[in-house]
């Protein structure tokens, strides 16, 4: 599923490289949006053939919901700048026992969260928003409290085995509840059992 998908012009090869280098350097969130300004002179059309999935993707506007124990979620905007589809299969973080890509599905009027089977696919040139109540990166079995203001590094893993590191700042936030008050289907239980 690619909720919030938007068409996007593919970036040039040099932009890929700039994006990749910038993604490694970036410690905080928002500034990634300025990536276009970092485009270097010249071009190298062969560069795209060597790019991994992680190198083709930027994560911007990322943040994480503060939580003391158990689990929490990361949100942001994933943009695939390449001409090829990419798939986020999961991730890891020293703040969590495991990291998965989750979706929210609705069946018989009941909304519940679950891991996206096969991972989150982002078509060529597309943008996928990770939002409270939508697709998100789930951090389970937290190893420490994540408090508002903390920076948490989360590594996303792609289908080709490549990885993308990004730091997200935690915010106090009441949304994206794991349990839904109306139904109490407790996807938290399914999370715990996974």
């Amino acid at each position, binding site marked *: 599923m690619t909720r919030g998908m938007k068409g996007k012009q593919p970036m040039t090869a040099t932009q890929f490289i700039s994006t990749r280098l910038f993604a490694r350097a970036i410690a*905080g*969130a*928002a*500034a990634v949006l*300025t990536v276009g300004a970092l485009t270097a002179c010249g071009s190298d059309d062969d560069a795209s053939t060597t790019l991994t999935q992680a190198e083709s993707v930027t994560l911007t*506007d990322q*943040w994480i*919901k*503060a939580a003391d124990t158990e689990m929490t979620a990361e*949100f942001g905007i994933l943009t695939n700048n390449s001409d090829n589809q990419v798939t986020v299969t999961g991730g890891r973080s020293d703040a969590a026992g495991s990291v998965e890509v989750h979706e929210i599905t609705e069946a018989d009027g009941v909304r519940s969260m679950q891991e996206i089977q096969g991972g989150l696919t982002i078509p060529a040139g597309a943008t996928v928003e990770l939002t409270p109540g939508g697709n998100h990166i789930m951090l389970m079995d937290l190893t420490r409290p994540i*408090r*508002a*203001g*903390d*920076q948490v590094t989360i590594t996303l893993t792609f289908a080709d085995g490549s990885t993308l590191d990004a730091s997200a*700042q*935690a*915010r*106090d*936030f*009441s*949304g994206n509840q794991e349990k839904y008050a109306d139904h109490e289907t407790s996807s938290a239980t399914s999370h715990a059992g996974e």
Partner: protein
Amino acid sequence: MPVSSGIGRRRFLAGAAGLAGLGVGAGVTAGGAAALRPAPTECTFGSETVDFHGDHQAGVTTTPPAHVTYVGVDLVPGANASVLGGILGIWTDDAARLTQGRPSLSDAEPELARLPARLTVTVGIGERVFTVADKEKLRPTWLRPLPAFGIDKLDPKWGQTDLLVAICSDDPMTVAHTVRVMVNAVRTRIRVRWVQRGFRESRGAQADGATMRNLMGQVDGTVQPDSSLHDSLIWDDGSAQPWFAGGTSLVLRRIAMDLDGWAELDRRGRELTVGRRLSDGAPLSGTSERDDPDFTAIKNGLPVIPASAHVARARRTGDRDRFLRRAYNYDDPPNGAAISDSGLLFAAFQRDIDAQFVPVQRRLAEHDALNEWTVPIGSAVYAILPGVREGEVLGSALHERP
């Protein structure tokens, strides 16, 4: 609601639907259909923005918009430089987005971010923050409690806090949303001590840049440092604390007005109290608001401006004892038998509180005819952090690891 017989119910509903819920009933009179189709109102200032990034924070020398909310918060017990840095990181990001009409990252009501209407967010820190962050050596010397003044009747309810956020906009919806978003994102790291809301004349009600009036009816804030003096009188140059270059200080005083007592005074008495005409703010010795008061003018053997008048006592005696005033009115629900709780959120910005603000306040505390009707009931001082470039976090010298 009377609807003229010439307009059928169906037509009325059709017209009302087209007006998208604008209290249309009030416009329906015997005049008929014309009242149902008023000229569309032009949107004017909702989308106006003030730059967030720069050498200085916005909201100091910026033209004051109509509304302010000051939020005074304390850090939670056990907070340290890292906690401070987390809060300032979130607030910097929030302010950079919201002031440009974009929702914050965790904005639960993103539609309320669409009309910044000259929104500014200005962050200040109190004295204790330097202790919490273990950065005592970085504290500006003037950042400490003001001396006690004889006129003060300070209520700790409005006292010093660790952090201050000043949020200004021409749209009170935007102010409320910005306050909510910024406090909510760090709610487990802070405790809100007080919220002080203020207002001026509405945007567009009078010429932009016209001096505001306070609720005693006086033109308030005529004498201000010329913009050519902002670098010397308002902005810190970093000579004492290099990290603070581009910052300034804020003295925020909540001044209660005795409007009932003031009501007993006739206009002549009121004008002699302040030294200015009520009609246009002109000094009693002059003919227009911007005229320099002539304190030597004598009429019928008496000074035209009494030596005890507010303007006479407040006037500067040298080059340094002056500051930028950016007051707003407050008018809160009264308690007990009172019929109003009104006053001024007096805000003074200056490079050095000790050299600029305190001498003037001492003179006024010693004697000022206006003191009979005004009482400072709240007081706090803050270091207003230097501005930031894109990607930087406010106050990073206080929380980044060396």
